[in-house]
């Protein structure tokens, strides 16, 4: 992590000198910890960052690898990238827990586990589902094309009217009744 070296470069053009090399963080020597609701990072050199945020590079296809660690955005500019965690499962157990928690908070994408019922009214679908985050009712536009994304024949994203995404990871892993309902209303 040569973050400080970068800032010593001439200030004329911060972007022109940006390197295209990926900076990987060493999972064994860095530490993530919560202070209150702030995720903090202590890097290999012992430098402490009181608030960092995480981004997944591949939120759907590889949710625990290629995790970006960034400083928070401020009013003027986007947060600086500190580096990439290639696989967060290689972190120390406590750090891994903290990272998982932060990703869970940042990515509010409930995974549907069971469908109780789906009702259609006035051009909207009303869903009542169980998710990995608890029971939820949400409302989706009745336009299959604009409010669903098909990752694969069995992997779907449903986009509700607030643009919140609900994930069906594996349609075939749902119970039979849920599957039938989803198939019926998503016109599969």
């Amino acid at each position, binding site marked *: 992590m040569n973050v400080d070296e970068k800032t010593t470069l001439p*200030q*004329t*053009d911060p972007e*022109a000198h940006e390197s295209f090399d990926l900076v990987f963080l060493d999972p064994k020597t860095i530490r993530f910890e919560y202070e*209150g*609701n*702030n995720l903090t990072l202590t890097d290999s050199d012992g430098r402490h960052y*009181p*608030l960092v945020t995480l981004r997944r590079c591949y*939120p759907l296809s590889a949710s625990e690898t290629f995790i970006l660690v960034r400083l*928070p*955005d401020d*009013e*003027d500019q986007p947060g600086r990238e500190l580096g990439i965690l290639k696989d967060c499962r290689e972190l120390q157990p406590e750090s891994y827990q903290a990272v998982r*928690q932060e990703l*869970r*908070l*940042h*990515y*509010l*994408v*409930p995974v549907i586990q069971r469908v109780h019922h789906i009702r259609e*009214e*006035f*051009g*909207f679908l009303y869903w009542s589902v169980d*998710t990995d*985050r*608890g*029971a*939820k009712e949400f*409302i989706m*536009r009745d336009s*299959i*094309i604009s409010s669903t994304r098909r990752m694969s024949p069995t992997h779907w994203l449903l986009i509700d*009217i*607030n*643009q*919140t*995404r609900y994930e069906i990871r594996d349609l075939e892993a749902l119970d039979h009744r849920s599957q039938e309902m989803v198939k*019926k209303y998503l*016109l599969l």
Partner: protein
Amino acid sequence: MNHHQNQPISNSSHLAKDLQRILPYPALQAFEKEGGFADRLQIALASDLDANGNFGEQWLLIDDASLFVFAIQNGQATVQFCFILAEIRDAQVEPCVGGSLLRITAQGKTHVLLHFSNELTERFALAAHYLRQRAQLGAEAEPPDFSSDGQRCVSCGNRLLDPSLKVCPNCIKRGQVMRRLILMAKPYWSLGGVLFALMLSGVIVDLLPPFLTRILIDDVLTNKLHTNWLFWLVAGLFGLQVVRVIITISHALLTNRISTQFAAGVREAMFAHLKSLSLDFFDRNESGRLLTRINHDTEELQGLINQMASFTLYTVLVIGIGVVLFSMAPSLGFFVLIPTPLVLAATILYHKRMLPNFRRYWISRWRMNSMLNTFLAGIQVVKAFAQEAQEQNRYTELNQNALHARLRIDQAWGKFFPFISFAFGAGGLIIWYAGGQSVLEGRISLGTLMAFLGYLGMFYGPLSNMTQISQAINRFTTISQRTFEFLDETPRVQEKAIAAARPKPVKGGIEFDGVTFGYNPYFPVLKDITFRIEPGELIGVVGPSGAGKTTLVNLICRFYDPTSGSVRIDGQDLREMTFDEIRRNIGIVLQQPFLFSGTIAQNIAYAKPDASREDIIRAAKAANAHDFITNLPEGYDTIVGEGGAGLSGGERQRVSIARAILLNPRILILDEATSSVDTEAERQIQKALETLVQGRTTIAIAHRLSTLYNADRIIALERGKIAEMGSPQELMNQKGLFYNLVQIQSQFARLDGVPTV
């Protein structure tokens, strides 16, 4: 809510009482226990997530001195955070995925307070805004009004699903909408009356034939009482058929005429209204949605009017036949009702079972079409990267899907159709049996039975159609409501009714006086901008993207009104001028030149349609466009724009410069006029612009800073504020933002091998 000193406290405690009402008891209790004052509550806002990101409940409570966050679990409230308001310097809502978080800065440290889902983002943004205000103004800050976030039904307060409507479908006042629609249709009332009369006579004509056949069978064929009636009865039946044909034709013609004319009228009213709306409306509504509303909604309205007319017809018919059946033979009339549920069930089942199949097929076709579209548009890329096989696979898969969808329709139809025929046929069989029994027992005549069966054929069809009535009425009122709401939309930027505009020649001085503006008032794009431009000055506006350059220009054109402060031309506030006065004196050349479909001459004369041919040529010459135009086979009569001849980017730009020259405005705005063309074209445009800027106040937003070297002054914007202002030389010496931007560009220019500076 007003919080000035002379306002009584009761105002704020009224708010506090409202908030206490929505607050769950454990939270209230814990809040008071921790030292909060419930009767001084300013904000009580619930998050829909718990601290672990599960669906749950956390409360943000703010009274006049402190901020609390409570988590509620199993009816227990626990304090998560507590801050003294005076220590909070900043508050921000930071978007995450599917939700956002609220973050505050207190005692020099940033703290993440809580997460919430997208649904609540707007409300927490209001709360953050309040906290920021509070940090600046102290107790003067006004607590936000959450009821006005524009996402709730104005009638019942439930969340709005369809943002194109201000009320939810449940709250549409159908009666009111219908009344307004009927009033709107006033010119067609007399035609409508004729239509209704036609409809009634049509029903009577429909009801007569079975009546005649009864006489034919009973009195002529069976009992042979009046054998000489045969000819007349058949002739009568023939006559009725002829009349029926005439009525049907005129009915159809009239309905279509009314609905088409009515829809065209609505469409025209909508367009007339659309062009009067200010730009902020177009920001809020994407053009695709507007297109749908004007084209699709009116078309659907037309279809629905036709449908409504046929529903009226069916209703009259069903009632008419019902009355006739029951009066002919009350006992048999009862039997008619027996298959009715069967018919209704079959219809409902049809819509439930068959329609999804059709929709599935449409979707698969749509996917295939859009894939084909992308493929054709990107054929060069496909070839260049040799990915034909991948595209082939994609197409095959989609084609297979479409095939399956089509098969499902055919199979479902194959299974379903016999069932429908059975449902309709079974009704007839019941009548045959029950009626036959009655005939054998001599209670009714054979003619009556035959008449009955005749009526029956007319009865079930309309009846099954009527199951769709409620759906059609819903659709009808929703679309009408949408249309009315659109027509009721008032432009935000409004022309003041000015007593007799005195057309005073504008000199071209521009002043910004403490101007703050944001497309969303909570997120200002320009912050407290003040400057003065003298008439005839050439001003360059520079700055990184997102700094507010184009917004500045939008305010000068009065596409928007500033949130606070004022923009003045020659000392006069823009809001005091007529649109015509403003636009006549301001010419714009945009980055993406826009040509309307029409000839080049029409495009040049767009803002001044009465311009003479000489003027047009003179303007084109000044814009350095004359040569290329006259080299075109159709010269100035060349049709451009959609479906017209393809002009290059530089040529289009020069046509649009000619347009600005012809208008001869005092103030000229060049919004990155040369950024989308190559170097040679840029040189040509630059030449054209040199003629254009002479003697005018010019504001040039430029990406290529080399073009600004002869500017009188440069305004450098950064994050909505003026970072620097002065002559190019001064700013170069100052080594600030402008200097840096120039440095970057000259570095890139060296890379390109093109010396710019």
